[in-house]
């Protein structure tokens, strides 16, 4: 059993992990001036979605780690692709997982955990886009364009321009577009994630498509870059 100081750090995390190896997981006792954090040895990689939902519902102390290991890469990828590599998505990832913990009791089919998390992420994306639009509208601050790291200058600039075009879309259109094209979901899956009909989804995606293409075509440099861009490698 170990105690985590309130001001924790990565070092603390390692100490916690080492101590937990000795203690085994499953403890939940607490003592004065500290919290007991049991650190599970196993990542829950052998569990299926239904089993994960069961430990979530049971308030099992392994739940956070298991869910994180299983779903955080997917959530992070979705958010990254929706907002661009330079958008700060750490808070959004936390928001998605906190919502999952809060709403997991409403999940009717435990096997549909992944779809449930996709829906939560989609709503988080939509809310964040609305927040960005509202921020721009209120002129309370500037929203900076996305800038890719570790990419050559041309692709970075192209990415900036493309995400600026995305910034012109409404929250509904942008989210639908992201799910359909960035994540490769089918129309029905996008509709389910957004809680709208397939027809509405198609309409929003078509609208987003048209606007993106129109705006992109107005940018000669961007068109030029995309024309020479080869998906197999850098242009």
């Amino acid at each position, binding site marked *: 059993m170990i105690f985590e100081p309130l001001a924790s750090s990565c070092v603390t995390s390692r100490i916690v992990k080492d101590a937990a190896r000795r203690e085994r997981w499953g403890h939940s006792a607490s003592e004065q001036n500290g919290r007991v954090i049991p650190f599970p040895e196993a990542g829950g990689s052998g569990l299926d979605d239904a089993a994960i939902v069961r430990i979530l519902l049971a308030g099992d102390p392994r739940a956070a780690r298991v869910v994180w290991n299983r779903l955080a890469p997917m959530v992070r990828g979705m958010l990254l692709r929706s907002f661009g590599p330079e958008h700060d998505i750490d808070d959004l990832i936390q928001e998605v997982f906190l919502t999952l913990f809060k709403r997991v009791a409403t999940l009717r089919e435990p096997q549909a955990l992944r779809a449930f998390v996709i829906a939560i992420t989609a709503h988080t994306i939509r809310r964040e886009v609305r927040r960005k639009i509202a921020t721009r509208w209120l002129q309370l601050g500037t929203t900076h364009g996305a800038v890719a790291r570790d990419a050559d200058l041309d692709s970075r600039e192209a990415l900036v321009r493309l995400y600026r075009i995305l910034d012109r879309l409404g929250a509904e259109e942008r989210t639908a577009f992201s799910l359909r094209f960035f994540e490769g979901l089918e129309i029905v899956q996008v509709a389910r994630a957004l809680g709208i009909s397939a027809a509405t989804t198609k309409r929003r995606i078509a609208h987003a*498509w048209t606007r993106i293409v129109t705006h992109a075509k107005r940018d000669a440099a961007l068109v030029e870059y995309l024309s020479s861009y080869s998906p197999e490698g850098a242009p």
Partner: protein
Amino acid sequence: MKPQEIIDRFVHLARRASEDSIDGPGPAGLHRLERALAGSRRPRPSFVWIGGCVLAAALSATIAVLLIPRDRALTFEVTQGCVREGGYVVSKAADGAVRFSDHSDLGMDQGTRLRVSNVDVHGAHLMLEAGTLHVSIRPRRLARWSFDAGPYVVHVTGTAFDLAWEVERQTLDLRLHEGSVTVEGPLAGGDIHMIAGDHLVANAGDGSLSIVDERNVGPSQDRTGISAVSETGPAGPVSSSRSTPAPSPTRPGTGSVFRPSGGPWAARVARGDFEAVVDDARRQGIDRVLSEAPQADLAALADAARYARHQDLARRVLVAQRARFAGSVLAKDAAFFLGDLAEGRQDAALSWYETYLYESPDGAYASQALGRKMTLVQQLRGAEAARATAAEYLQRFGDGPYAPNARKLLRAQ
């Protein structure tokens, strides 16, 4: 390029960028989640505390709303004249003036009578009853000004001109010094779009109209002025100063006034009809278009040619734009686009970007021009030579798209 290809490549680029991002959802995020979950299991704060927070938030929001600067309607003051009820202004001296809060200015000759109405955040509606106005409208985004003179209406966005209306002779006299305006009224052939240098005299009684081009045509320029600027690179920053005006031939009536078919080109470009605009220009004759088209149409044609990848035509149009409308914002912007079009000729591209930065240090494309200049200098003269530009870029556009590259350049020092 097909729409499908644009989307496919955009998606691929976004996916590749997300894959390239090295930071995974690491243990710090998990740790934070665990702490948040532990915190959420603690006793919830009392309703009194929540109520206090809500109240504080509401108060903050109210203060924020009150403090956000909002556009207000323009105000104006009159010198050397008198103002009567309803914004009726009469100039009592030769130097009478109406000055607006956005620094737009109307000089009035003695005895000029003017009514100022519908003053809002974007401009005003002015009715010239009689006399002569010397108008200088400050160019602003969404600016909306209009001047009634007898049966004519002059629509303005940002420009300088002299406007006179003689009641007895029913004659409108409009001499445009800068920018462009559109004149509505009983004109043969519809509205007239005027550009800097045009002098219009219209008579509402007999419907006669003449437009004289008073643009400066210097000895080194032909009618289009193309010879003054080389397509391979700028000869030097274009000055807006004018020498003694040399009137060019009168346009004999509206028949010879350039008018794009199928509506204004700018609107068609906005709809994505790039090829149609280029075709229309070719039908009318490129030389004629370059020498006669108003600035707005020329700019639209340049855009259409660029978007439709007719790069030679785009270059010609941009060069003509710079020569004919030297000193205007669009002419200055043309330098940036010419740099963009100078692909494969890095020296020429660099020269155009430097020209743009010289002419428009705070222009809309200054960030991109400076970033590209930095890249080109690095490619042409090496990293050492590019560092000064990198430092300037970071100082001016610290979070711009070229900032990471600029930092890399400076770090490598």
